[in-house]
């Protein structure tokens, strides 16, 4: 697993030396670090086999993650991602208010949604603290593993 201190060290190294791109990978991990040319906004991607990583081939059609492609200029907030495959429900019942909506404050134990799989409704916790900035999935829609559901501004 990637050590965050090591990553910091790498970025510092890049800044000091004015590098634009750094790509490290081995059996277990991949690290790609890019710095602005003059115009591209600061973008740091770091992680094991990551998210939108450097996908050589088009993402699979269909249900594939709307996650990808953060607009270059826009600040990208962390997301609460689905830990499973199933159907997303924003509220505890058809006529009930949603668990959270834009502006809601959440803590690690706040239930943010239900995901139904095999007739079982699983309560999903925020597992982070902050404010809901965006709801990315509509109630009743399917979600896949790792799909971002809420954007959270950390507190």
């Amino acid at each position, binding site marked *: 697993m990637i050590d965050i201190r090591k990553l910091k060290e790498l970025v510092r190294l890049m800044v000091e030396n004015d590098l634009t791109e750094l790509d490290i990978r081995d*059996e*277990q991990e991949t690290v790609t670090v890019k710095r602005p040319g003059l115009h591209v906004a600061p973008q740091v991607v770091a992680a094991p*086999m990551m998210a939108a*990583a450097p*996908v*050589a*081939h*088009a*993402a*699979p*059609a*269909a*249900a*594939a*993650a709307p996650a990808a492609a953060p607009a270059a200029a826009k600040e990208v907030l962390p997301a609460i991602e689905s830990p*499973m*495959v*199933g*159907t997303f429900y924003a509220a505890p019942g058809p006529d009930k208010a949603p668990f959270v909506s834009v502006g809601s404050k959440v803590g690690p134990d706040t239930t943010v949604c239900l995901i139904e*799989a*095999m007739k079982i409704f699983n309560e999903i916790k925020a597992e982070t603290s902050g404010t809901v900035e965006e709801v990315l999935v509509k109630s009743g829609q*399917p*979600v*896949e*593993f*790792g*799909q971002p559901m809420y954007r959270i501004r950390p507190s």
Partner: protein
Amino acid sequence: MFKRILIANRGEIALRVIRAAKSLGIETVCVYSTADKGGPWLEQADQAVCIGPGPSPQSYLRIERIIAAAEVSHADAIHPGYGFLSENAHFAEVCRDSGFEFIGPSPEAMALLGDKVSCKKMARKVGTPVFPGTEDAIEDIEEAVKVAAEVGYPVIVKATAGGGGRGMRVARDEAQLRAGIESARQEATAAFGNGAVYIEKFLEHARHFEVQTIGDKHGNAVHLFERDCSSQRRHQKLIEEAPSPGVDPEKRKKVCESAAALIASAKYSGAATVEFLMDGKQTFYMLEVNTRVQVEHPVTEMITGIDIVREQIMVASGKPLSVKQSDIKVNGHAIECRINAEDPDRGFMPQAGLIETFSAPGGLGVRLDSHARAGYRIPPNYDSMIGKLIVHGPTRDIAIARMKVALGEFRIGPVKTTIPLHRKLMDNPDFNNATFDIHYVERLLKAEEAAKAKG
């Protein structure tokens, strides 16, 4: 017929199922792990659903996630491919209980033929030739000693739940037998949670002979003749061919028919392979039954013209088999080489990483089943097979000649593969004359190593 099939697998077999489904006008949904994100076969599916992280226990082996993916994608059937959950009777049962057709046998038939002891009992009943040995799992060690003396040493101790060489011990005398039973039990308990073992006659020199069968839900069962898979390394098949060279036609007919009878007696629907060892006198001994499509099914397709995966899908949907036994004829000879991303110079260590060059062979009689291509990054999480090169020709000699040409054309880099090993084996006299047994590849590799060590 099904409207949409979910494929609970990855790589070349996922692509194989997609191709068969598409040719039937059926939509496909692939599940995939994050390690397989961007996998080339996913492009060919109508939908792809991420079910978890790279390690299989968190994705391809997670039954509830696969069922959930089938639910959200509105699939009506699930094809398990090979490996992963394909021989898991519980999975087949959950599919059925959740309202999805499992493209394979019923959980009952799978359990019956998948368990070595119950399978052997059934085989004895219908006349499929089996190894002499114990009837049941061994309860009493003295009984085992008695049986071993009857069948004659060497014998082999095997775990009933075993596979891949684990839980197996060869015994050449009584002392070895007593020790072997103990250690095999311990190993099997650790590996499979089931310490039951049984003993069988052990063959020093044998060829691997397996019969492809397929049954439907109407009680029909046929065989599609046999394959020879004697080219192995550490119990892993490297080269498979059909038909098995030089086998007496009458003996062959009899053993193939007995295999079809075995699956018929189990009320088995779907594709199954009945594996045998064949000794120097062409006597057959059943090893086990694989209750799924096999990696090497293409060689049988080439000589019979029957699309086995298409047939699997059709019979799962309730249709009767598209062929009768009398329609099935052998046409020519086919050979398959498994192309694994392994480094033969480093003990066949698996090679993950980016494929930069991928230039495939082609032409008359050449078939390639592969999900790989230039730009594909092989993830480190799964097995190392990146494709299967299959050739067909009117005779075995012509098939070998075509395989040599095709192997000569195939370029994959910088990842190391088994292509150079296959080139060597195609020139090997034991392979060419079919004077091989299941240990010849290992012997060849050892001899090479020894020669290298000598300098």
